């Protein structure tokens, strides 16, 4: 049995359903990330695992034991809070040592652990200050330290690095991942930042409106999104969606996009055809900006558009392109850049292996 298991878990606040029938398992040593926009129920889910929030219905098991009514202090968990939750009167050292003292560890052991985690999170120089005067980023690292220092069955983290500046966030991301991989601790990590989830997690559960849309490895989530929400939430710049119609033209599969005809591989066409038959061929096409190639020369099987905006963002260039009535975004790496300027006409080629088709009404993927 998995280390942590959520079974048909619901959470209601009066009329509001914050978490709807969540089923989730987390194995020993796994780094599981709950990813979703704010208000999607990910924090409620985490807080129910911690026991800080009562479950409206359903069951939560830790190590096979039903913990629905167990006090948070008895669940052997550690938690890092988004809003730090530091003890105001205790110096940083004591804040970090607090959970260890509750466990009655020896003074020597406590010191060893606190110093270890302080070094890891780069807070050695503030160990004897009170939290009040410290910056938000420092306070958040203390909160993270307090969660990491404890030998817990599960480490719960609620946006633990969201208040750090970009550089420190990157460093912490790296250190957390490394720590997880070298110690084998079990982490449930809540974030709204897809980069954090993608870069650290073994598996990601994408949530929205209290429902889990997809659970999978970062690669699965990125390459095989189960629905429009997941496809739209992951990836930066965001994926382009285009209304289109699947047709069979001269024995080949093609899609009609903004009055252009674009041929797609048979393999893909076959898959989508079945599902789209009911819709009279109507499908919603999703294509990531990175999967669009641009060309100034005439090419077979390309759409034509007009560049309306060029944004050089360093290692790549982002083009806003008018395609019929729609506007799409393409991202080209600097090496492959073709130096088009605003107002010029251009040919657009999609990477045929990385096209996504969704049900225009339900948003479900038509081929995964």
């Amino acid at each position, binding site marked *: 049995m998995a280390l942590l298991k959520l079974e048909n878990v619901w959470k209601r606040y009066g009329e509001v359903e914050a978490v709807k029938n969540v089923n989730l398992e987390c194995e020993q040593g796994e780094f599981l990330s709950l990813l979703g926009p704010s208000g999607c129920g990910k924090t409620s889910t985490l807080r129910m695992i*911690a*026991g*800080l929030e009562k479950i409206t219905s359903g069951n939560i098991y830790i190590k096979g034991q039903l913990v629905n009514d167990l*006090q*948070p*202090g*008895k669940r052997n*968990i*550690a*938690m890092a*809070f988004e*809003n*730090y*939750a*530091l*003890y*105001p*009167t*205790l110096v940083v050292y004591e804040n970090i040592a*607090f*959970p260890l003292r*509750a466990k009655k560890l020896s003074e020597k052991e406590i010191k060893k652990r606190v110093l270890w985690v302080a070094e890891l999170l780069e807070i050695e120089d503030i160990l004897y200050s009170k939290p009040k005067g410290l*910056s938000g*980023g420092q306070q958040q690292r203390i*909160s993270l330290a*307090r969660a990491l220092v*404890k030998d817990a069955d599960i480490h719960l983290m609620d946006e633990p690095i969201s208040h750090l*500046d970009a*550089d*420190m966030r990157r460093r912490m991301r790296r250190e957390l991942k490394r720590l997880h991989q070298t110690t084998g601790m079990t982490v449930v990590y809540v974030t709204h930042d897809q980069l954090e989830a993608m870069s650290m997690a073994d598996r990601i559960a994408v949530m929205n409106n209290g429902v889990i849309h997809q659970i999978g490895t970062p690669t699965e989530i990125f390459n095989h999104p189960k629905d429009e929400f997941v496809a739209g939430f992951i990836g930066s710049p965001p994926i382009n969606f285009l209304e289109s119609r699947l047709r069979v033209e001269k024995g080949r599969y093609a899609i009609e996009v903004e009055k252009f005809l674009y041929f797609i591989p048979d393999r893909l066409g076959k898959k989508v055809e079945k599902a789209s038959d009911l819709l009279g061929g109507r499908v919603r096409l999703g294509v990531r900006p990175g999967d669009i190639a641009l060309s100034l020369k005439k090419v077979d099987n390309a759409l034509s558009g007009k560049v309306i905006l060029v944004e050089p963002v360093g290692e790549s260039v982002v083009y806003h392109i008018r395609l019929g009535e729609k506007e799409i975004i393409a991202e080209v790496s600097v090496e492959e850049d073709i130096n088009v300027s605003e107002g010029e006409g251009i040919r657009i080629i999609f990477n045929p292996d990385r096209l996504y088709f969704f049900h225009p009404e339900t948003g479900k993927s038509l081929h995964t």
Partner: protein
Amino acid sequence: MGKSDVVEKGRTSAYTEGGGVKVWIKEKLEDFGFAISKTQRRFALALLLPAVVVLALVGVFPAIYCGWLSLTNINLARAAAGFKYIGFENWENLLRSPYFWNSFKITLIFMIVAVSVEFVLGLGIALVLAGRLRSKFLRTIMLIPMIMAPVVVGLCFYYLYDGFFGIIPWMLRKIGILGGNIAPLGEANIALWAVVAVDIWQWTPFMVLILLAGLESLPVAPYEAAQVDNASKWQVFTKITLPLLRPVILIAILLRVIDAFKVFDKIYVLTAGGPSSATDVLSMWTYRKSFLRFNISLGATVSLIMLYVVLIICVFLSTVLTLERKRG
């Protein structure tokens, strides 16, 4: 922030280097708030001026006038005799007077006992009520004691304390604490406590409400962390609640201390300082000296002493208030 130094702080700036005295003066003036433009300053002063004039008239002038009075021997009872400057004679007499010190002692006892009981009771009740007193109606009821005119409060208790038909002595007799037909306000050894009880009765809700507001605005997060860390209830109270609540506690206590120090209306109605000066607080004593015995100069001297005491507490209060306002 980390290691990137955000704004460089330092005495010397690029333009002081070689700028000389002029620039130095300019910097000094900025420190005093002359940095804002002329029109702005004029506008700001125009808005402030009427209030400052009124306050000078009603707030500063009396204090200075009292200072003058305290150095004279005005007595309205012998107004015809006129008055003269007598230096610090009033002060000397006062500091030697056992009646003054008795009155001072009574005021301090009143203040300390009333405020500490109010605080302890208030904190206890607030802890029980925290998060549970949402109703607008109930909160209004809680406010009634402190918004009632003190005279009316005094009146109510005068009636409740009546030796013959008052409900409080009646109940105390029932329980057996009080014997015979004793009127609490008429006994020298009980009267002060009876008056203190009225103050407690009236102002405990104030403590409750303020501490309640403080408790309800505390962050939830440290409590949750303590839950996860399996901390005991006592630890939570001493390590989280009390320290976080400290500024609010300080403000509530200081406000009450100042108020209790000035107490007058209730005493006037309940005992008028009696029996045999058992409840003769400073305000009461001053009032009697000035308006019943007409020794205005002596009254002015005592009131000045009271003003100094309040000013000292006020400096402290102002610091706490300013800090707390900035944080909130």
